[in-house]
Structures are given as structure tokens and as C-alpha cells.
């Protein structure tokens, strides 16, 4: 497995040398993925909560659709967003193609269903537990939403992390709508794809190691925050 040891060596070399190109790529990756997750949470959590608490016509169909959308192939989403943002497309006037914004848009589409579906499950379970008591205290489903979201914060954090995992790991969508342009739209995953296509497998794997370390770091930070908060607030 010389490739693997080469990979680790390449990874350490990059990190130790504080390679500025690497720093740029990592920073952009975090900006795109975290930005996408933030927007997806703003959209997905209220939608999920609404689906959990309110009955409305078509809810069942929406539920099935939401769960299905979790499995959207990133490359297909990338293609659709590309066609929409292309100069020849409906949203071309904004000139968003091949920018980090386009990448965030594509990832928001990928991540929102995950957060919405998981939020729905969490809120639904919580409501089963809380409904009588909250109604008794004077909070119907609408008034209860902030409390439910807060009380379910640990489970909801997990759903956000799942969304982040999806965003930071995908390459198909960001490759198409971002164009993998050096210094502009090159993120970790597209850089790995590029180095692989150049046959520089050690470097590609090294970047992969760094990417996984990043993901580990984010999850570890979230876990520690959760532990601390749980000890403090229950």
C-alpha cells in the first residue's frame, strides 16, 4: 500500500509547509459548505417543523417527496442548476455561473431535504411527548415551534451535521456549476478529482486525508459542544 503511505506523506507535507494554495482551497470549501448548510437550515428547519405539526392537503405526498429528495444525485442537481444559471438559461442575467455562489445554491438544494426530513422526524417525536403538556400551558403547535426546536436541539444538531457531511463530501454538483476554476471555485473535492485525473494519486489521497480530518474536526467540535451544553442544561 505504498500509495497510502505516500498519501499521508503528501498530506503532512502540505500541512507542514502551510501551503497557501491548500489554505485557500480549504477556506473556500468551508465557506461553501458551511454557507450552504446555514441557508439550508434556515429553510429546512421551519419546513420540517411545519410538516411535523400541521396537517394540510398534500402533506402525505410532500412527505414522500421530501424523503425521496434526500437521495438526489448531486451531479443531476448540478446539471439542473447549471442550466438555470447559464447565460442561455432563465437566471443567466445574474452571471452566477462559475462562482462560489452557484456552488452554494447547488448545495443548498442538496442539503435542504435532508435537514427538513430529519427535522420533521425530530419535531414529530417531540410533539408526541410534549403536546398535552404544552397545550395545557397555553402553547398550541404554532406557539410551540421555537420551544420544540430548542428542546430538540441536540437531535437537530445531528441533522445539521448530516447536511454538512453531504455538502462537504459532494463533488458532482460543485464541479459542474463551479467549473473547478483555480483560485476561484476550486474546493477540496474538485481538487481531489483534478489531481486524480492528473494521475497524482498520492496528492489526491493526501488531500482526501485532509478533507476527512476537517470533517472529523467539525464533528468532534459539535460533539464536544453538545456534551458541554448537555451537562449544563440537560
Amino acid at each position, binding site marked *: 500500500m505504498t500509495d497510502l503511505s505516500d498519501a499521508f506523506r503528501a498530506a503532512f507535507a502540505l500541512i507542514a509547509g502551510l501551503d497557501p494554495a491548500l489554505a485557500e482551497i480549504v477556506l473556500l470549501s468551508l465557506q461553501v459548505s458551511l454557507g450552504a448548510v446555514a441557508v439550508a437550515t434556515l429553510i429546512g428547519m421551519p419546513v420540517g417543523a411545519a410538516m411535523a405539526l400541521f396537517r394540510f392537503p398534500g402533506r402525505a405526498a410532500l412527505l414522500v417527496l421530501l424523503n425521496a429528495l434526500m437521495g438526489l444525485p448531486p451531479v443531476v442537481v448540478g446539471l439542473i442548476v447549471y442550466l438555470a444559471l447559464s447565460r442561455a438559461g432563465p437566471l443567466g442575467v445574474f452571471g452566477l455561473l462559475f462562482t462560489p455562489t452557484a456552488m452554494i445554491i447547488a448545495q443548498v438544494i442538496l442539503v435542504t431535504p435532508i435537514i427538513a426530513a430529519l427535522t420533521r422526524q425530530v419535531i414529530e417525536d417531540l410533539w408526541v411527548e410534549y403536546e398535552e403538556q404544552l397545550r395545557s400551558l397555553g402553547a398550541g403547535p404554532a406557539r410551540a415551534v421555537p420551544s420544540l426546536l430548542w428542546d430538540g436541539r441536540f437531535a437537530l444538531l445531528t441533522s445539521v451535521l448530516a447536511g454538512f457531511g453531504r455538502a462537504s463530501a459532494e463533488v458532482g454538483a460543485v464541479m459542474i456549476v463551479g467549473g*473547478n476554476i483555480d483560485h*476561484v471555485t476550486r474546493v477540496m473535492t474538485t481538487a481531489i478529482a483534478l489531481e486524480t485525473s492528473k494521475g497524482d494519486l498520492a496528492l489526491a489521497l493526501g488531500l482526501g486525508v485532509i478533507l476527512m480530518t476537517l470533517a472529523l474536526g467539525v464533528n468532534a467540535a459539535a460533539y464536544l459542544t453538545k456534551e458541554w451544553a448537555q451537562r449544563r442544561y440537560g
Partner: protein
Amino acid sequence: MTTTTKRSNPTARAVAWRALLVAAALTLAAVGAPSGLAADKFITVASTTSTQNSGLYDYMLPIFTKKIGIEVRVVAVGTGQAIKLAEKGDADVLFVHHKPSELKFVEAGFGVKRTDVMYNDFVIVGPKKDPAGIKGMKKAAAALAKVAAAKAPFASRGDNSGTNKAELALWQKANVDPKKASGTWYRETGSGMGATLNTAVGMNAYALTDRATWLKFKNRGDLEIVVEGDDVLFNQYGIILVNPNKHGHVKVDLGQKFIDWVIGAEGQAVIAAYKIGGEPAFFANAPKGGS
């Protein structure tokens, strides 16, 4: 009668709104910041993965940007996709290597004018063991005919790229229809040059590649160059400005500045100076005196 009370609850709602505003602000900052608002002088060039993987852009573009002050953003995809990109107006300049397609592009009104820039050559790579026995042959088409006869594995890009079209032209010259054998010894990867080479290495197969990509390729495995030097392996690159009449937003001035530099004395010298492993990767051949 219900027990739900609908009282106004200013405090909770105020908190919720404040949180939402903060989140929205953070999001806008995240979205707005990296969208390159700082760089207003840039052009988008649709080019190919082969050119990208040769490393030419990494070498050439910083020199250009330093001299002229325009940022060049290269979107490197397959030739077919690059041309499509330019047709849709998603790029300002098209820089690929398949003359027939380029001329069609200009004829159809999508491009202003096509100019030669540089050339390199294709080579056929294959396993050192050489099951088809083509090593050292001087004629590429004949070599491919032997590959077909031996049913030796061959990895094709199969992606409508310049390289792919050149490869198919060779098969035609050899009077072989490899598509009939697609899935057996003829493997169409539908991928870029690098990915196809990775596959070829993994399968110990023959493949057609441009020399520059091969020189830069680090995962050679058991493969080496087996056929080179035939005139038909000549690979010409051309540069075209996307027609502003088709797409009003094309950056005509900036794009033309880039083209003029590339085909001018300075750009040509830079191209000629680019070496991989001590060997020149491309040969600059823009017509003297501009276009």
C-alpha cells in the same frame, strides 16, 4: 371551547426574529464574501482537461495576469462540453483543439474568428509487454489495426472531445469500427484524459493521449509510449472569441486582449518556453503578424 390562549408574546418573538436576522446576516456574509466581488477584471475561458492537465495554464496565466492585469478563469471540461459552454455564452473565449468543430462553431455564428495558437502531438501508450506488437511502429492507423486484430484492451475517452475525435478518425483510417467491440476489448470510459489514463493503467490497456498530458501524468503504472511521430497524430489548438452579437455580455475587450497576447510574440514565446521534464510540451504556431 378550547384552552389554547392566543396572547401576544413579544419577548419570544423578538428573540426569534433577532436570531433569524443574525443567521441571515451570517449567511449573506458567507455567500457574498467568496463570490469574487473584488475581481472585476476577469474573463472566462472554456478549454479542455488535456490543456489543463498539461500544466500550461498554471505556467502561462500568471505571466499574462501580471503583464496585462486581467484574471483568466479557465473552465476545463471535455472539448464537446467546452464548445457547448461557449455556444451558451457561459465563456468569453474558446480554446480547444479540434479544428473541424472550431470552424463549425465560427460558421454557425457563435465565434468571431478562429486563430491557430500551438500544436502538440498525440501518442499511443500501451503496456510494456505490448500484446498487440505495435511498439516502434511509424504509422498510427496501422498500429491501431493491429490492436483491433489482437483484440488487445484499448481505453477510449468516448466523450466527444478533441482527443476522442482524433482517435476515431484514426480508427476510420484503419478501416476498423471499434464501437462494434465496445464493452469487450474497446472500452469507452466517457471521461477526461486523466481519468481515461487511470483506467488504462488499471486495465493495462492501450490508449491515445496528447503528449503533454502524458508527460505530466504521474500514475503511469506499466504503460509507456509505443507509437509516436506519425503526421496524423498532429494536434492543433485554436482560440476563438465568443461572438458578442450572440451574447451581449461577452467581455469583448478583455477577451480580445487575451487572444492578442496569446497569439502575439510574447504569448507564443511563453508557450514555447513551457517544458515538461526538460522537453517542450507545445509548439507555438500562431500566424506571424497577429491573426
